[in-house]
């Protein structure tokens, strides 16, 4: 599960050179972002992920980059490390349903009753993505090579529950993927996503060091400091 330190280091160096670190106002061209991320993807897919197989990572990368696309000002999900985040989650306790009541019998319920499939999050991902990839073998182009418009179209059909994926209602999977994308974009960087705190910088959320007694009643004040991650404290530990 732990990434090779060397790879980690070289990827970090690569990131630094690929785009500016730590300064929220840097303007990066879209071309630079795409070049950086596609280079990362080609080197990472085969070796780096603890959970995702290359064909799974290919779909997930493309999909999350539609949920939170890169733009002129801000990186998208992939560049923010969302795929790494989801990968770590799937490979860990959350992925194996370690945070859920996991006793049967498993029965189909009403929407009010929430998730009742007998599939752990990791199994859900594996199963649904396998169905998606299987579907695309019958198409001319794989999902990750479609135009962004076509990709969006496909994701909308999933979210609208227009199909089932090896028995999984497509909306269940798509909602799941979207939720994980948001988590990966905004959770503390110790979990592998929100690289360089881009998610926080984009919103203007100052992060876990938070003491505002003096500022709260200075109505309208703009807090201008860079956010700081839990990882900056030597004592920190993730879940």
């Amino acid at each position, binding site marked *: 599960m732990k990434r090779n330190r060397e790879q980690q280091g070289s990827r970090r160096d690569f990131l630094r050179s690929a785009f500016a670190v730590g300064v929220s106002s840097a303007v990066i061209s879209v071309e630079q972002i795409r070049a950086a991320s596609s280079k990362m993807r080609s080197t990472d897919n085969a070796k780096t992920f603890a959970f995702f197989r290359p064909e799974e990572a290919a779909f997930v990368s493309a999909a999350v980059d539609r949920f939170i696309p890169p733009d002129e000002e801000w990186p998208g999900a992939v560049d923010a490390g969302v795929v790494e985040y989801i990968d770590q989650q799937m490979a860990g306790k959350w992925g194996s349903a370690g945070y859920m009541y996991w006793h049967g019998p498993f029965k189909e319920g009403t929407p009010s009753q929430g998730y009742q499939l007998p599939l752990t999050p990791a199994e859900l991902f594996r199963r649904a993505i396998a169905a998606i990839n299987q579907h695309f073998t019958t198409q001319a182009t794989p999902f990750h090579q479609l135009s962004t418009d076509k990709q969006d179209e496909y994701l909308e059909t999933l979210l609208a529950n227009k199909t089932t994926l090896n028995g999984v209602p497509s909306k269940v999977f798509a909602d799941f993927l979207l939720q994980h994308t948001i988590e990966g974009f905004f959770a503390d960087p110790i979990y592998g996503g929100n690289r360089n705190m881009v998610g926080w910088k984009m919103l203007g959320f100052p992060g876990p*060091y*938070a*003491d*505002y*007694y*003096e*500022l709260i*009643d*200075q109505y309208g*004040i*703009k*807090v*201008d*400091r*860079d956010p*700081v991650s839990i990882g*900056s*404290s*030597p*004592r920190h530990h993730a879940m």
Partner: protein
Amino acid sequence: MKLNRSILIGTLAAATAGFLLTRSFAAESPKTLKADVGRGAEIVASGTDYGVAACARCHAFDGTADGSGAFPKLSGISSYYLEKQLRDFASGLRTDAIMSAIARKMKVEDIADVSEYYAGVRGTPTPAPPAAQDRLALGTRLATVGDEEKKIQACEGCHGAAGRGEGPAIPPLAGQYSQYIAFQMRMWQMGYRKNDANQQMGNIARRLSAKDIEAIGLYFERLPQKDLAKNKRQP
């Protein structure tokens, strides 16, 4: 000419003092005031001709002060915090034998300018004096974990990871002279310093022993002073 000028200065000083005194806690420095870093550097280097002493005489031009620990390092502390301290010296909310008189001579622009200057300056690292392991361990514990019995939360919870501060209102402690930290903690402890927003510091200081205070100073002194120039003032 001179007479008129001194009347003008007197009026300005009075207006400034009045202005500063009427500034309530919540109301910040005028939002329209744009700080002039260049002018700030001038005042830091050579003072003003109406009697504001050159800050550099005690705090050094790069904010590193003179190594004695009697004067704090100012480099990289947010302009917001520095401005507040100067205003508080001027109004009497904070008192110091030297700083009170200096601050009272400063105009609002002077305060803004020198604060902006020091906030953006990178100081020179100073070697921390040797410290006993058990003292450092105590200081590390109090600063990064806190103490349940004494009801002390970790200093770094407010003063930032590795003491870098939590801009703009909470100052960094990283690299600050341990003697100065200890001196201020005693001032908080004895109630001579009271100008923090939520009366937190006095409370905390009164629960610390002299040994605790020394240890905390020793811990923070040896932390690297990061480039803190990002703690900008508000627009």
